């Protein structure tokens, strides 16, 4: 790096100094914290002062605390999206990036101007095309760009602005000048993380934020809500605004869910929506609900498979036509990706003069577009000194990744540029200013870039967020990503008032209260969260009982013990058939008798069904991320930890049992939170319906497979005890019946006792009550199928006579009436589940194209 800055002086004391905020050596470039003369820059003074009184140890503690908080949120900023979650999250640094009012005024004014300019360029490109015909923009630069979507021509939303959100990546050079590195014009990627980072910082560094006069973000988000509400084409009272999210496995999904939950917007995907009569509708449990505005967090190409990219999934056919009709608005307008083109940079100064009569306020590093022969000649002559980038960038490119020169391979670039020069740009590298990050108990200077956000407000101006997200790294191209994320603090001149989203309702703010209605897909996911959580719990309990018995059985040398183990394992395996790659029946052979000793092998396969249930639980929970409180999410994250641990423990019985104990505790904490912290809205009703169906189904299966018995294997005390243990009934039973184990009393507690929350009848009563609450079509008062099915199950249990149930078949020795009853209940439960799923959930088959899609090519 080169710099014209004066030679720095050493300011650092020895490495063991208690003062953690000094560098070992001043960086030879502009540093955000230290000025070259060794003084702390003004905006940092209060922050550093507070640290000095607080001490280094405390700062370190808080640094760890913030890491823990974010980990619990599950908000790894997955720079390299990895659906398996193996990515290393970037740590949020305890040291923010602090800007004073003067710097931030420069940034704000620059971004407002830029957003305004780009909005006009966007309107021109998809409208009159004057910039092209006047030669201010080269035709090839636009026509060859993948973001130029011809179907969007003349189809921008009928709002005054078309670029509703604008984000920019910025960096300061070594002389202290702030540069604009890249424009982000599709969606405000990173805005949810910014919000989350600030929330975590407020928890850990609240005292610093308050005393340091740091500008709050809440008024920006209030403005955002007002701006979106004001876009509503019909201007009606209760706009329905939704976040049109990427797939739940996408790296950006977390922040989308976070944003949705903060702004109280439903987070939806293509299959949640449908286009009818030129309007977009959200499919909810109450039917179709008209959508006014979609805040899209997915690339425009992937928004409408009919008119845009037919190869993308999860889009909404007809969306573009709906926006043409003007009954709803998509932000940012479809097609806005055309502005994410670094090749525009050399042309923007002249365009700013032409359209605004102004010079650009924020400089960018010199940039060349290879489609112009002269610029191309320069690039080829200096290719080793420049950063080459294609004109097309992935819309959610994480900031900073394009900062440094691509390693080597200038010959490769040369060839590519020669073949299709108009697809490449080059820019001079920017020697970037450093900012402190907290590492190894002291401050370390790292080159730092930041992203911040602007929104088009109802007043037709742009408001810039007083904050953002920064990244400090010595190697932006490192994989896995390296460095820290930082919260961006803007110091205000005046003390900050607290504005929360619900303290000052404006007329528009009031309107936000309207219920979007539970989207059907959300309901479906909650239903499966209930079912899988319950299944996982019972499976974990059964495995635990098996292990416990096994440890005791070696002393007992009882045949009954062996039989009991085999039955329980059998239930586990039957409930979730193990993968059987060799085509062998593997259920036997794992339990064998050696010299009167029972040996048991619990291998990976026995935990497979449990692991699979947990996986399915996490997937469903992740898809409705915005529904969970931070406490609930923490429990889910703990569970994820146990799940991973469990996978490594196969064979180690005692450790496995302890791991299962912890898992059961987490599952119980989760179910407790669902009961105590979730509002009893329809979503909860569906979740608990799933839970009740699963628990009654599992319970009837367990009883049927263990307590029906036969002549060869009569029901014995050990078996009954195991079932009571597994179902968490053993304490109640002992208290009530002392130590006398008999089938009729066991069944009485397990099946008939409607005060026992673990009994079958209790589940069925709850189920029946939930089903009554499910929405019905107006004017339909007849008993519905699912009500009838639940009623029948309840009645069959209630009308059973215990003595009758305990009768055995004289020939087979089995409790055949019990068997039949449980079989009927099981069938009724399956039909109830199917009926609910059929009526309330989405059953859209995969969409397909009538014509084959052409392969994607570079134009």
């Amino acid at each position, binding site marked *: 790096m080169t710099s014209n800055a004066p030679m720095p002086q050493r300011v650092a004391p020895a490495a063991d100094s208690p003062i953690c905020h000094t560098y070992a050596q001043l960086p030879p470039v502009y540093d955000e914290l230290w000025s070259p003369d060794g003084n702390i820059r003004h905006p940092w003074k209060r922050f550093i002062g507070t640290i000095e009184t607080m001490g280094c140890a405390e700062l370190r503690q808080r640094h760890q605390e913030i890491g823990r908080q974010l980990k619990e949120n599950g908000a790894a900023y997955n720079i390299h999206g990895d659906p398996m979650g193996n990515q290393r999250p970037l740590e949020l640094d305890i040291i923010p990036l602090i800007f004073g009012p003067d710097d931030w005024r420069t940034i704000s004014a620059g971004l407002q101007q830029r957003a305004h300019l780009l909005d006009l360029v966007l309107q021109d490109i998809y409208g009159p095309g004057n910039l092209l015909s006047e030669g201010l923009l080269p035709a090839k630069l636009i026509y060859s760009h993948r973001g130029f979507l011809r*179907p969007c021509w003349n189809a921008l939303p009928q709002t005054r602005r078309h670029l509703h959100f604008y984000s920019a990546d910025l960096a300061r050079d070594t002389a202290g000048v702030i540069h604009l590195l890249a424009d982000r014009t599709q969606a405000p990627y990173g805005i949810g993380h910014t919000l989350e980072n600030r929330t975590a910082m407020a928890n850990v560094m609240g005292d610093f934020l308050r005393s340091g006069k740091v500008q709050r973000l809440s008024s920006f988000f209030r403005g955002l809500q007002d701006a979106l509400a004001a876009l509503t084409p019909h201007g009606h009272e209760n706009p329905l605004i939704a976040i049109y999210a990427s797939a739940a496995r996408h790296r950006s999904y977390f922040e989308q869910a976070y944003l949705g939950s903060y702004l109280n917007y439903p987070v939806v995907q293509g299959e949640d929506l449908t286009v009818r009569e030129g309007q977009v509708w959200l499919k909810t449990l109450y039917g179709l609900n008209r959508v006014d505005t979609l805040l899209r967090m997915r690339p425009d190409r992937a928004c409408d498979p009919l008119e845009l990219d037919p190869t993308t999934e999860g889009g909404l056919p007809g969306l573009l036509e709906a926006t043409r009709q003007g009954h709803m608005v998509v932000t940012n307008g479809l097609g806005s990706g055309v502005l994410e083109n670094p090749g525009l940079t050399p042309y923007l100064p002249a365009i700013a003069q032409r359209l605004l009569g102004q010079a650009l306020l924020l400089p960018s590093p010199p940039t060349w577009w290879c489609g112009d*022969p002269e610029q191309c000649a320069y690039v080829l002559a200096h290719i080793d000194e420049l950063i080459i980038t294609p004109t097309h960038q992935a819309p959610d490119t994480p900031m900073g990744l394009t900062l440094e020169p691509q390693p080597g391979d200038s010959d490769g670039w040369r060839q590519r540029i020669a073949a299709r020069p108009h697809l490449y740009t080059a820019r001079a590298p920017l020697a970037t200013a450093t900012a402190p990050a907290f590492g190894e108990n002291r401050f370390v200077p790292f080159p730092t870039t930041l992203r911040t956000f602007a929104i088009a407000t109802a007043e037709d101006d742009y408001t810039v967020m007083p904050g953002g997200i920064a990244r400090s790294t010595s190697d932006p191209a490192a994989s896995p990503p390296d460095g820290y994320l930082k919260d961006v603090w803007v110091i205000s001149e005046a003390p900050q008032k607290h504005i929360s989203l619900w303290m000052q309702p404006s007329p528009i703010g009031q309107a936000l209260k309207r219920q979007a209605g539970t989207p059907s897909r959300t309901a479906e996911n909650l239903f499966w969260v209930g079912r899988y959580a319950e299944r996982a719990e019972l499976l974990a309990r059964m495995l635990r009982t098996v292990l416990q018995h096994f440890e005791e059985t070696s002393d007992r040398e009882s045949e009954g013990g062996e039989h009991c183990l085999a039955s329980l394992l059998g239930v586990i395996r039957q409930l979730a058939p193990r993968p059987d790659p060799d085509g062998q029946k593997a259920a036997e052979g794992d339990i064998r008798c050696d010299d009167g000793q029972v040996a048991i092998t619990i291998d990976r396969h026995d935990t497979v069904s449990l692991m699979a249930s947990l996986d399915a639980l996490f997937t469903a929970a992740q898809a409705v991320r915005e529904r969970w409180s931070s406490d609930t999410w923490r429990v889910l994250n703990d569970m994820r930890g146990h799940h991973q641990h469990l996978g490594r423990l196969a064979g180690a019985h005692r450790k496995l049992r302890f791991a299962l104990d912890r898992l059961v505790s987490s599952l119980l904490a989760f179910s407790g939170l669902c009961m105590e912290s979730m509002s009893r809205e329809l979503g909860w009703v569906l979740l608990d319906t799933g839970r009740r169906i699963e628990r009654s189904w599992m319970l009837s299966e367990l009883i049927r497979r263990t307590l029906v018995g036969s002549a060869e294997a009569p029901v014995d005390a050990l078996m009954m005890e195991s079932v009571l243990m597994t179902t968490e009934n053993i304490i109640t039973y002992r208290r009530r019946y002392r130590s006398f184990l008999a089938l009729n009393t066991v069944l009485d507690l397990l099946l008939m006792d409607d005060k026992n929350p673990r009994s079958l009848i209790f589940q069925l009563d709850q189920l029946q009550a939930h089903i009554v609450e499910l929405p019905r079509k107006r004017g339909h008062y007849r008993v519905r199928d699912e009500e009838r099915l639940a009623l029948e199950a309840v009645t069959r249990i209630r009308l059973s006579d215990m003595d009758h149930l305990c009768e055995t078949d004289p020939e087979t020795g089995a409790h055949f009436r019990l068997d039949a009853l449980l079989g009927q209940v099981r069938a009724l439960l399956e039909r109830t589940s199917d009926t609910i799923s059929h009526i309330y959930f989405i059953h859209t*088959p995969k969409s397909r194209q009538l014509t084959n899609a052409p392969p994607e090519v570079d134009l």
Partner: protein
Amino acid sequence: MTYRIHHETRYRYAERTTVSYNEIRLCPRTADGQSLEEKKVHIEPPPAELRERTDYFGNVVWYVAIQQPHEQMRVTVDSRVRLNRPALPADLSQSVAWEAAVERLQSTADTEITAAAEYLLNSPLIAADAALAAYARPSFAPHRPLMLAVSDLMQRIHAEFEFMPGITDTTTPLSEVLKHRKGVCQDFAQLAIGCLRSMGLAARYVSGYIETLPPPGKEKLQGADASHAWCAVFVPDFGWLEFDPTNNLLPFDQHIVVGYGRDFTDVTPIKGVIYSAGQQELSVSVDVDRLDT
């Protein structure tokens, strides 16, 4: 010259779909020397929405949403088109030399040329490459007038390629067509476009119809009873010159234009999204009748 065109398309799906969203480009457009006098579109089952608009290329598009369960969709378009085309250039040699055209196309000052720049670039189905340039080169002798060079290229494609339906489909790459020297009108049009773009010229795709009844004493034209496709090259100081490599002629009063585009993908007659598994069957019938002379 007035023509009546009847075009019927039927899609039969493997399974029932509850809804379908379609974009239909089957309406003859207004073009230089062509006016649309009448149009009628009929869709079975009756669509919940049918809206007409003009797309980026100036073509007529019908947006059609069907919101009732259906196993097939029938689209019938009847139109009457009047042709009054300007005379063809009397002398093809009176055009700019092709190298000069290539150079003029790089200019950024001229609005007309800026608009043509779109057709210099690759498009989803047509990527310029060395093989296409090599095939084109014999037609492009130094300083040859552009129209003559194009006419020569058209004659060579007509002579060296065999018209053979059924071996190519809408996504067959040009390299295959070049290798096997067989295909249909769409392949030949896209081949010619690919050759021209590889030479640095601007060329576009034209979809439409060709009169089906042979005039007395003349050979029957290929491509009858179906949609037809040909292409056009941008000639500076002249404009777009259409040519039909399948039939080796310059379209005059027997070609009816439906749409212009960079290639087939921009003028696909029917695009649609359905919710049903399995392959669909497509059947098409087209009648082009001359109403007067």
